[in-house]
């Protein structure tokens, strides 16, 4: 029988929005049992993003919620009620890991902070994924994805030459990247717990995780006192290097030439037009110095052609090139198709759709076909009775008093 890396590990998931749920989503892919805790008073705000909430059960339809919460079990617990807190603590007793991304102090105030949970379970690992960490002058500051992109250096480096910094660098922002590091933190913590048998608290700062991706510009400042600036699509050593207009409305092809070999291949693929023999373009330094002129020649060539075809022609010649694609085109990619990158999901409310799979292919522990994201409170009975042993009468009473439930008390959070 197949065994997944985290089989037998239970994760109590108190995260919400995108960063936290994408972290625990990865742990679910790796075989952990993830128990997602929301409440009918306040459901995961990730259920409200990119979706029309006025639809029937709109809160079950949000795309990112579907993508990040597959394989999880859904429980609702009102942590404003003592009985909800008791149930949460009881879950902590039978869990290996608790993850949360509330503002600093919220878990403590609710009575489910690390000190309270440790009393229940000394081998428990708890990870708080706050914006700026639990110590330092910014510890209590509010942060979301956009501020983290601004504070961590990406925004400063993304933008046109001479233009303002741009916070948006991809279709989805930093949250899922933070989530990747959150999953990594959980794995490191589980390694450590396996070794020592002891639980602990891990203070995870979203800001630090993203700053760790800024190696070159940070080291340039450390060594040379130089503050690197935005360079649009250019590169300090490569030319031509950019997104070039192609045939059609808002179509572009990206081309990156780093060395003489690639340059010769490019010229050959273009059938050696006269300007390719321009002596100014004979070496990398010259091409870089005269890249404005070079770009004009390239643009004249690319704008007559389909971006996809240009990219294929250049790729087959050994030149890095690719069409600039939107998400719809990414979904139709033949390579990703060949690598079975998209999971076919069938959700009772959100319907059939595709979503990206776990990014790593494992020869022995590849995740089995996933279950779709849980409906609000879908597994209340399975978890609260099945796992915690609460009686049917207790569940009825809890439902009566709105400590648990499956219907949100209001549609907006």
């Amino acid at each position, binding site marked *: 029988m197949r065994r997944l890396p985290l089989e037998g590990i239970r994760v109590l998931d108190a995260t919400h929005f995108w960063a936290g749920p994408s972290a625990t989503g990865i742990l679910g892919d790796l075989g952990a049992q993830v128990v997602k805790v929301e409440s009918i008073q306040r459901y995961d705000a990730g259920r409200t993003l990119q979706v029309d909430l006025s639809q029937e059960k709109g809160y079950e*339809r949000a795309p*990112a919620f579907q993508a990040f919460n597959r394989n999880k079990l859904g429980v609702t617990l009102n942590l404003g009620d003592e009985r909800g807190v008791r149930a949460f603590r009881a879950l902590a007793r039978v869990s290996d890991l608790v993850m949360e991304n509330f503002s600093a102090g919220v878990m403590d105030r609710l009575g489910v902070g690390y000190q309270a949970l440790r009393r229940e379970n000394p081998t428990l690992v708890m990870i708080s994924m706050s914006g700026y960490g639990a110590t330092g002058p910014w510890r209590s500051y509010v942060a979301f994805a956009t501020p983290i992109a601004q504070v961590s250096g990406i925004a400063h480096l993304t933008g046109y030459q001479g233009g303002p910094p741009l916070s948006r660098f991809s279709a989805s922002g930093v949250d899922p990247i933070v989530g990747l590091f959150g999953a990594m933190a959980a794995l490191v913590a589980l390694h450590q717990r396996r070794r020592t048998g002891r639980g602990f608290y891990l203070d995870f700062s979203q800001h630090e995780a993203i700053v760790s991706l800024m190696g070159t510009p940070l080291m340039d400042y450390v060594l040379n006192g130089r503050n690197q600036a935005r360079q649009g699509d250019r590169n300090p050593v490569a030319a031509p290097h950019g997104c070039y207009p192609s045939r059609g409305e808002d179509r572009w092809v990206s081309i990156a030439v780093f060395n003489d070999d690639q340059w010769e291949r490019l010229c050959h693929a273009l059938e050696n037009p006269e300007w390719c023999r321009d002596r100014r373009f004979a070496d990398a330094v010259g091409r870089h110095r005269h890249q404005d002129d070079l770009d004009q020649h390239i643009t004249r060539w690319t704008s007559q052609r389909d971006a996809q075809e240009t990219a294929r022609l250049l790729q087959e010649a050994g030149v890095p090139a690719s069409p600039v694609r939107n*998400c719809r085109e990414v979904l139709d990619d033949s390579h990703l198709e060949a690598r079975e*990158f998209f999971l076919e999901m069938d959700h009772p409310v959100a319907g059939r759709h595709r979503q990206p799979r776990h990014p790593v292919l494992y020869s022995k522990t590849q995740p089995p076909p996933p279950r779709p994201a849980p409906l609000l409170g879908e597994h209340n009975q399975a978890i609260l009775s099945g796992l915690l042993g609460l009686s049917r009468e207790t569940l009825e009473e809890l439902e009566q008093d709105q400590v648990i439930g499956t219907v949100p008390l209001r549609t907006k959070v």
Partner: protein
Amino acid sequence: MFPEKGEEQPLSGARVLEVGNYIAGPFCTKLLADFGAEVIKVEHPGRGDLARHAGPFPDDLPDPETSGLFLYLNAGKKSITLDLSTPSGARYFRELACRADAVVESLRPGVMARWGLDYPSLSTGRPGLSSSNPRLVMASVTDFGQTGPYRNYPASHLTQCALAGWAWYAGEPQRPPLQAGGHFTHYLVGAVAAMGMLAALYHQAETDEGQFLDIGGLEALVSVIAPAVTASAMGSDNPGRQGNAFPGTVECQDGYVGINALSYGHWVSVCRLLGLEELLDDPRFDSSFGRQRHGQKLVEQARPWLMARTKEQVFQEGQEHRIPTAYVNTPEDLVRSPHLDARHYFRQVEHPRLGHVKVPGPPFRLDASRPQPVASAPRLGEHTAAVLEAEFGLDRDDLRRLRAEGVI
């Protein structure tokens, strides 16, 4: 020498061989080294890792032993040189792999196979690395993975931003799509590989079972835009390039800040903070769509207020009102950040040529109160003799012979 770690670390005792180059592969093993793994970097004799030649260098003077990028990515690792294309180089590597827990390689697909150093050796019929060490975990980190129609395509940060559905969404509507700043995508692919390695090493610790991990960079980059891709799959279009649309970044006295009024509650706080309460009665700003569409009006009216303040002041005053303001940190700001300093984020390495150098720390720490000491990045082949002596009992004559043959 390698610093003594006071306490056992999560990966203490794990030995990882790295045949990495530039950023993705080395960043993966750097993360494993951050948490206690012994990483032996196997470099090509003479040339070494591309990151040694990429800089930044002090005063921009190229020198393979002073690259800042190499220092950041390889601090705390060991370096040995082995020409893996020679039979004896490949043999030593295979024997090292028998005594290792993991191998991370980021060469083009098929290159390790050509040398008989792939996981199960498909090409040569010789035993692959796994047949002599079944508990070995091996990861291949490439742009497109080991299979599929693009597997042999070259790629770069820019072309991957374009292909993965990133660039389309960055920049202004009438101007070219933009690559993400820095070498962001390379780091991300390395981070995905590290996540996979940590999972596979956990599995190895529990079951003694090894396995092969195929990491394709394009997949790593698409997986972190899952919200937008899934939205497209469910039929809703993501807005394309919007430039610096509100809430974007806005200029203040000494740089740029983000005001980031994301919810209506933030909007109310922003209007109060800026003394623009009259906008609260303006119906155009009632919805988040409206605020985005007309946000430029707020920015214009707020200009005098913003230009009278530094980014630090805007940040602090906004946070006092619980608005998720942020300032756009430059590399300088980050290196000098009082917050990161209070959290001991950066660490010092003692470099034999450069002296004390500040390098970014790990992305998270198990014990944030105590910065982990770290050794400098290795000189090319610094540990060749020590490792080959300790592992295979080679003496000076053997080493001299291997050197003469160009193997090390």
